Structures are given as C-alpha cells and as structure tokens.
C-alpha cells in the first residue's frame, strides 16, 4: 500500500513518460491526432493505482481521471498543432532560404476544412452551397460566446 500523494506523484510521472514514449515511438511518425493507446495504458494504471493506494481512494480516482482527461485532450491538441498546424507550418517554411519557400497561403487548405466540418457533422453541402447543421450553429454560437467572454483575438 502506498500513500495518496506518492500514488499521484507516481501517476503524474507515468503520464509524462507514457505520453513522451508514445510521441517518440508512434505518434511522431503518423498523421493521426487522437492517440488511444497511451490513454488506455494510463486507464489501466489508474485502476491498478486505485487498488494499491492506501488512503483517499475516491480522491485518487477523481484526480487520476482529471489528469488523464486533461493529458489526453492536451496531447491531441499538441499533435494537431505539430502535425497540422498552419502557424507551425509557416514557421517551418521560414526555416528555409526564401527561394525554397512555399507561398504561406498554400498551407491553408480550405477544401480540407470543409470536409472536416462535414466529417464533424457541422456543415453539409446542399445545392452546391455549404450550410451549417444545427450542431454547426451550436458550435458557432459557443465559439463566439467564448471569444467574447475571454476577449480573445481570433486569428482563425
């Protein structure tokens, strides 16, 4: 049996090691942004941890779920930024001499974004025009609300 804080410390370190290993061994070499394997591995660790922790089992389970959810979400966004990010692509483009660069606007692939919206069920083509679905309207309103609330500079 180990104490709660030692168990959380071990779980935190395991999260960092597992996600770093996943990036080095698997995710760096493919095009996907959702990595299920490390999340499943850490869920197994969480279940095992809940058994071996000596005190505050419920707090351990809640904390483990919070950390795992946050890590999985943060990692998916990190992979999206590193593999599909337009800003990172522009930066990467500018590591080359000017004559070898691609025009920066080429990184913004509107067709892919339209298909992504369709894939998420946010928009659909109707009579050769793109229309928002009810889910798309909800997402648009939610984004606008968050941007207004947090007073964010939208770069889009």
């Amino acid at each position, binding site marked *: 049996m180990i104490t709660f804080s*030692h168990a959380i410390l071990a779980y935190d370190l395991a999260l960092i090691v597992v996600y770093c290993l996943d990036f080095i061994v698997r995710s760096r070499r493919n095009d996907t942004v959702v990595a299920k394997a490390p999340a499943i591995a850490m869920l197994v660790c969480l279940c095992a941890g809940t058994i071996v922790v000596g005190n505050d089992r419920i707090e351990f389970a809640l904390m483990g779920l919070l950390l795992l959810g946050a890590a999985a979400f943060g990692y998916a966004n990190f992979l999206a930024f590193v593999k599909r990010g337009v*800003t990172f692509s522009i930066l990467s483009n500018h590591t080359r001499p000017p004559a070898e660069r691609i025009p920066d606007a080429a990184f913004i692939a509107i067709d892919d974004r339209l298909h992504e919206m369709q894939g998420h069920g946010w928009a659909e083509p109707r009579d050769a025009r*793109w229309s*928002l679905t009810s889910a798309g309207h909800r997402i648009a309103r939610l984004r606008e609300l968050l941007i207004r609330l947090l007073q964010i500079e939208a770069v889009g």
Partner: protein
Amino acid sequence: MILAATLISAIVAIVVSEVIGHGRVIYTRMATLIAAYGVACVIADSVVKRFGGSMSDEFVIPLSVVPIMAAWLGFRIHLSNSITLEMVTLLEHQGPQSTQDLVRAYDPQKHAETRLRILREAGYLAGEDDHIAPTAKGRVVLVLIRALCGADGPRAVASRLERRRGAGA
C-alpha cells in the same frame, strides 16, 4: 485537499495569464503563462504546507497542474486559431455559401499574412526575409521544429502538399 489545490492553482494561473495577456494569441506570451503557473503553484504549496501537507504534496501540485495547463493551452490555441471554427463562424454570419464564395470570404492570403504578423510581433521571425530570429528564442524554435516535426515540417501538412503536387503533375 490536493485535488482542490491542483484545480485552484490551474484556474488561478489561467485567469492571471489571460488578464495579463489581454486576449492575445497564447503562443506569443508563453513566458507569462509559465510565470503565472509558477506563482500559482508556489502559493498553493505554501497553503498546503501550512495545513500540514507533506514534502511529496509540494511536488504533486506543480506536477499535476501541468496536464491541466497543457489541456488549456490546446483548447485556447484551437479556439483562437482554428481555421475550421473560423469557417463555421463565417457560415453562421453569412448563411449558405458556395466553396468559391467561402474562399473569397475567408481570404487565405490575408489570414496567412495575419499569422506572419503575429509571428513577427512575437519575435519568432526577423529580418527583411522573415527568417527565424538568430536569438536564443529562435534557436529553441528551430530545435523544436526539427525535433517535433522532422525536416519537412508538420507531417500531415507536408503529406497533403505532396499529394496535391502529385495530383497536379
């Protein structure tokens, strides 16, 4: 208590960095975010210690706040920078559009220039030809790009461009 201290530290760090950052794009003010994280964790650690927390509790809080901050970072970048979300907003405001009308309304050239401007203002690009700045920050960016993306830049973008070149040939 550790769960509450972790959550409060993360929320304080996020709120403080947002207030100081005035809504600017988050990757242009990473130092503020890291400083806010550090201060929030130091305060949380001192409170936990005062209420009888152990030595390991003092390591647990800063370490546990990291995934939460990473999730916030991802969410925040997505919210401000996502092209897909920007196009959803365009459709919400302008109603149904053809692909050509959407391209015209979105204006990829203007958006690419906006991103360039932000990268310049943040000190990532410098000089007349917008090269990576020859500073410590620039060197870190170069190392990061090579380590995370490889020689061709972001993998999915590079393979999409490659496919387009193949289809166009």
